[in-house]
């Protein structure tokens, strides 16, 4: 019996090839997220970088390059906030405030890329003493930033829709309205939080009765920082305040390690800072809380890179 249809060999072979190709492609696409052994060897974008050695400026330039360079921020004409820690009436050597040389390097980098850079902090000691004695006011101005004292009138009560304990908090207008926020803390000891980096440094753009945040610190801190996370966190670990933080005062408590940690994920950067400090990041309540709410990852990410400058 003859088949009523004429068997076409060419068409059939094309179908099979197409079928096999699509199947293979589909399988590959489905498998990729599960990290096949060879997937790690694919070039991953650097999202967290630790740079050691060199000068503060070299460290920052190296870190920025590793993270994809300045161009990705399209800084030209943008309002950029660089938020160092200027909280204490201490000298740079005492390691309580961010290294002024690093502040200058970051400011210079963004200013030369065409950005308008603002620098400010809600200090714990008298503002003008902190600004002057930390060396940051002079260094940042020299580098081209607009350095201003924070004014009580310029805080906005920001809604915190995801807040657990706090539903709103005053946040500095120039910070939350900026196009780009660079958080520039110093790595140091803190009695309550144990080790602090970027997330705790964001208390410097908060107004109101900040000391109330200390009570149920982990939850309240994360409540407030959730909507105001920076685009980039750069931790200054040139000097590390090991004891009597956060304001120290004794040079014996300062350890110089000439290091810089930078990255996009504010939790990952703080966690790496904690590791470098010698703490276990998973033991830090505020980091655990931040990760639980999906602000970032404590675990070292795939895009982690270490660079040693000599």
């Amino acid at each position, binding site marked *: 019996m003859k088949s009523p249809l004429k068997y076409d060999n060419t068409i059939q072979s094309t179908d099979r090839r197409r079928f096999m190709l699509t199947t293979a492609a589909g399988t590959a696409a489905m498998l990729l997220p599960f990290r096949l052994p060879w997937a790690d060897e694919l070039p991953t974008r650097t999202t967290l970088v630790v740079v050691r050695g060199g000068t503060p400026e070299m460290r920052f330039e190296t870190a920025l390059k590793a993270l994809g360079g300045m161009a990705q921020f399209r800084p030209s004409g943008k309002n950029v906030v660089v938020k160092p820690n200027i909280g204490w009436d201490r000298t740079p050597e005492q390691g309580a405030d961010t290294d002024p040389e690093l502040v200058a390097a970051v400011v210079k980098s963004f200013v030369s890329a065409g950005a308008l850079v603002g620098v400010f902090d809600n200090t714990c000691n008298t503002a003008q*003493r902190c600004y*002057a004695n930390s060396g940051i006011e002079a260094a940042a101005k020299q580098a081209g930033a607009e350095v201003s*004292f924070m004014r009580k009138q310029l805080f906005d009560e920001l809604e915190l829709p995801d807040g657990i304990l706090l539903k709103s908090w005053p946040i500095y207008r120039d910070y939350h309205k900026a196009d780009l926020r660079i958080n520039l803390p110093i790595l140091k000891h803190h009695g*309550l939080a144990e080790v602090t980096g970027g997330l705790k440094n964001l208390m410097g753009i908060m107004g109101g009765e900040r000391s109330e945040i*200390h*009570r149920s610190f982990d939850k309240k801190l994360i409540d407030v920082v959730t909507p105001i996370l920076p685009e980039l966190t750069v931790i200054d670990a040139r000097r590390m305040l090991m004891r009597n933080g*956060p*304001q120290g*005062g004794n040079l014996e408590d300062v350890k110089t390690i000439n290091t810089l940690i930078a990255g996009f994920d504010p939790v990952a950067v703080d966690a790496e800072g904690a590791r470098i400090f010698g703490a276990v990041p998973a033991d830090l309540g505020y980091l655990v809380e931040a990760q639980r709410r999906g602000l970032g990852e404590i675990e070292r990410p795939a895009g982690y890179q270490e660079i040693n400058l000599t």
Partner: protein
Amino acid sequence: MRLSLKPKAIFLRRSSQIVFLLIFTALFLSARDPLLTSIPTDLLLRIDPLAALIAMLSSRLLLTTFWPAIITIILSILLGRSFCGWVCPLGTTIDVTDRIIPKFKPRGASHWKYAVLIGLVITAIAGIQIIWLLDPLVIFTRTLTLTIYPLVGWGLGGILNLGLAWDPASGFANWIWGWFEGWLLPLKPFQTALLTTTLVFFAGILILEKFGRRYWCRVLCPLGALLGIISRYSPFGRKVSTECSACALCAQECRMGAIEPDFLSTRRAECILCLECSELCPAEATTYNWYFQEKGQAALNIGRRRALWVVGSSLLAAGAWRTGLMDRTATGYCIRPPGALREDEFLDTCLRCQECVKACSSTGGCLQPSALELGWGAIWTPRAHMREGYCEYSCTLCGQVCPSGALQKLTVADKKQKVIGLAYFDHSRCIPWATGDDCIVCEEHCPTSPKAIQFRKGTVDLAQEIRTGVKLPYVDTAKCIGCGICEYKCPIKGESAIRITNEGEQRTVKPRLLSL
């Protein structure tokens, strides 16, 4: 009607008044952080010979910081009471406001001020210093600090706030604010105790003009009295030639009542060299010149009866002063600024001028004038209110700007060691002790190294549970200097859960010249 025949001389005097007013205001404004040590912010009070005299008499201390007062004395010996007419900022303020205050008929006996002066000297010898009540330069500085400066700050701030809120003007308002910030506008709102008291006191002096021009200077001012005594025989002054037609215009118009009934002689103790008579004189007979006046001045005589009255009432007042109740609760919480002399000498030397309060408002902001909680004798003296501010660890401003040495100048290193009090926890209110929640804001802010506030992890008995691992703060009393930042920052509402008392305070003891 005032004739203006020689406008130059009066213009010169008015310019001098304005220039000195501006200089003293600028010096006042420069009493802030960062303090330029090349600027003598306290100069106005250090040129005050009366403050120097009374403070030294009552404290029995040699107060060398008052050396510039010698300049005023020499000026007065040579040029009469020109200080009152050409320099004194209170006199200038009175001259300016005089124009807007309608008068009753001029009266008032100019010798009252000598009675005031004698009273001040007698109480000072009896060991009570009340120059702070009546010294014009003190009154001026105190009024600037406690009323004018905060009021200007609030007014200006209010206008700029409106500007900030209105979008088209916000950029400009922001710029202006940045420009005024620090020197004219305080960085944080400066609120003062005793604002109204000080204002009423000052307004009272200005309103005295109702009774005649320069009423305060002519009738009451004890500094005017002292300078008057010094300048009684000064070789420079008003001289009337034989052209005088005895029209009496000068005597009518003289704001100080310094012209004797013969119109020719001048009471140099009263004349402040305002030069108005030389301008008014229709006969152009009046000039100011180097000229010893040998006779014609009425004697400085306040009368025996009044003298007895003054001596008696001064001694009575001095006695009553010392018997007032001093509540131990109030005195225990009275934290004096670092470098303060021992309380007795402090009360005797402190002029209550508020220079330290002004300077402190630009840093830690703890200093406020006392009201009556420490008794009448201590009103307006500076004390640290740790709930309003704290003593900035590396700041030495109050001692730097103190004109009398009631607060000694300290180096930063000494200041960091200077104990002004001691912190005590109130466990019944402190968050970790009372509720089992972590807090330790006090520990975070404690500036000494190592910290005077430490914590241990411990157990707290609560109503529902026994909580472990709570960070419980305590004070290492050997390290605490009483700076009060813990009390200032404590998040508890109302009274802080950690408070400073003046336990263990270190006061500077200077040897008295006379132990009486």
